[in-house]
Every structure is written in structure tokens, then in C-alpha cells.
């Protein structure tokens, strides 16, 4: 989500290389995030292969900002 937050769009291969996750793992994550409306998926053909491009939505941006803010607050509270 951090990658998507800081880019306009990325494809599946880029996410695969950057996150070092497995193909199945990324596919599952992106599907769930798409169902929640946090990202949009654009599928098109590049040659004979399917090419999936991902972009974060406004809802996704807000959710990530809320999550990072909550995490920061939690860490601040834990720090003596």
C-alpha cells in the first residue's frame, strides 16, 4: 500500500519485484484490497499476456493515513 500511495500506478511485476512476495500472495492481497475499494485494478493485453495495473483510491489513501497515524500514536504511547 505504501508503494501504491507514493505512485500513480504500478503493475503486478513491479509489486512482485519490490515486495519479494510470491505471486499468489500478491494476487490474494490485491484482490482483498480491491474488494474493500482501497485500490483499482486495470487489466489490459500487452502482446498476448494480461497486464494488470494497480492504483490506490481516495478511500485507500485515507485508510492508510489513518492506519499509520494510529500506529504512530501507539508507538508514541509505548515510548517512555
Amino acid at each position, binding site marked *: 500500500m*505504501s508503494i501504491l500511495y507514493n*505512485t500513480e*500506478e504500478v*503493475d503486478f511485476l*513491479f509489486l*512482485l519485484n519490490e515486495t519479494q512476495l510470491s505471486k499468489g500472495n500478491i494476487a490474494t492481497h490485491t484482490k482483498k484490497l480491491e474488494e474493500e475499494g482501497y485500490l483499482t485494478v486495470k487489466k489490459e493485453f500487452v*502482446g498476448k499476456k494480461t497486464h494488470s495495473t494497480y492504483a490506490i483510491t481516495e478511500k485507500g489513501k485515507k485508510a492508510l493515513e489513518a492506519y499509520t497515524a494510529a500506529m504512530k500514536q501507539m508507538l508514541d504511547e509505548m515510548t517512555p
Partner: protein
Amino acid sequence: MSNQQALKQKLYYMSQRDGLSELFTGIFFFFYSSIIMTLLDFSSDAKKIAIFTFVFAFSGPVIQFIRKHFTYSHSGYVKGKAEITKPFLFLIVFPIAFFPAVIGVFLHIFHLIDLIGSLMLFSPLIFGILFFFYYWYQYRAGAGFFYRIFSFVSFILGIFLFIFNHLLQNEGFYVFFVINGAVLFLFGLFKLIVFMKRVKSNENE
């Protein structure tokens, strides 16, 4: 620098690795300087050059298409996010973009030849300052260390051409754009060759 900012810069850099942006910008600068020249020379080629310049100014979708289908098709496609701030847009992009329009209006509508002469005299200095900030913005966005060098070199080049502008018959701005265009074009070509070599070697591995 925050982690988010560093990540954003890294991703922007990754989206510019193939050098296509520099290639297209370099070509655009050639046509752009030719527009100003034709406006001053009353040349009939102005329309043709204007069309080419217009095409290259809006070549973003073409670059994205090439990236998706060719350059980034085997290494992973990413479109970076370089937020264009209002000061950058109004103080850098617009003055550069509307320079030919200003010349055209002053010269052909109001016939202010003296004013155009003064504008031409100072134009290398003006462009030197504008390009300093243009490249600096690119550097801050994450385009790479070379842009930091470009920013200082173009500023020095602007001063240099301003000093010797009378020897160039007030066409220092043309030399300025040609040098910037050539440097960006060659830099883009270099980046493209290096990038494609790296992609091929990764594929072979």
C-alpha cells in the same frame, strides 16, 4: 527526510530509469527554441514547428505506452508521482511555456521591437534562472543526482550566454535551448541503453 518522502523519491527515480522522459524533453527543447526563432524571423515554418512542439509537449501518454509495452514490460512498470506544486507551475512552467506567446504578442500585435530586443538580451539569464529551478525541482522529486548538476550548470550557462549574447546576435536563448536539449537527449539515450542492457542481463540470469 521521512521514510515516506524517501520512498516517494526512490519510486519516482525508478519510474524514470529508462531515460524516455529526458529523450522526449530534449527533442521538445529543440522544437521549442525553433518556435521562438521562427517567430522572430517571420518564417512560414512556424506552424509546422508549432505542431511538433505541441505533440512533444503532450507526449506523456506516448511515453507511458512505450514504457508499458517495451521498456518496462520485463522489469515491472511504475508511474511515479511528482506533485506539481502551485509555485512551480506559476513561477517556472508557465514563464517557460508562454515565452514564445509573449514574443508573438509584443512583436506581431503591438510591434514593440525595442521591448523584444531587451527581452532577447536578457533571455539567457532568465532561462538560466528558470531552468535552475526546473532541474532542482526534478532533483528534489527524486530524478537523480545528475539533475542537481544540470541545475547549476544551466544557471552558469545562462550567465555565460547573457554576457556573450551580443556576439550571438541576441540569439543566446537559442544556444541555451540547443545545449540543454542536446544534453538531455544524450543523457536520455545513455540511460535507455544502460537500462535495456540491465534488463537483458537480468533476463539471461
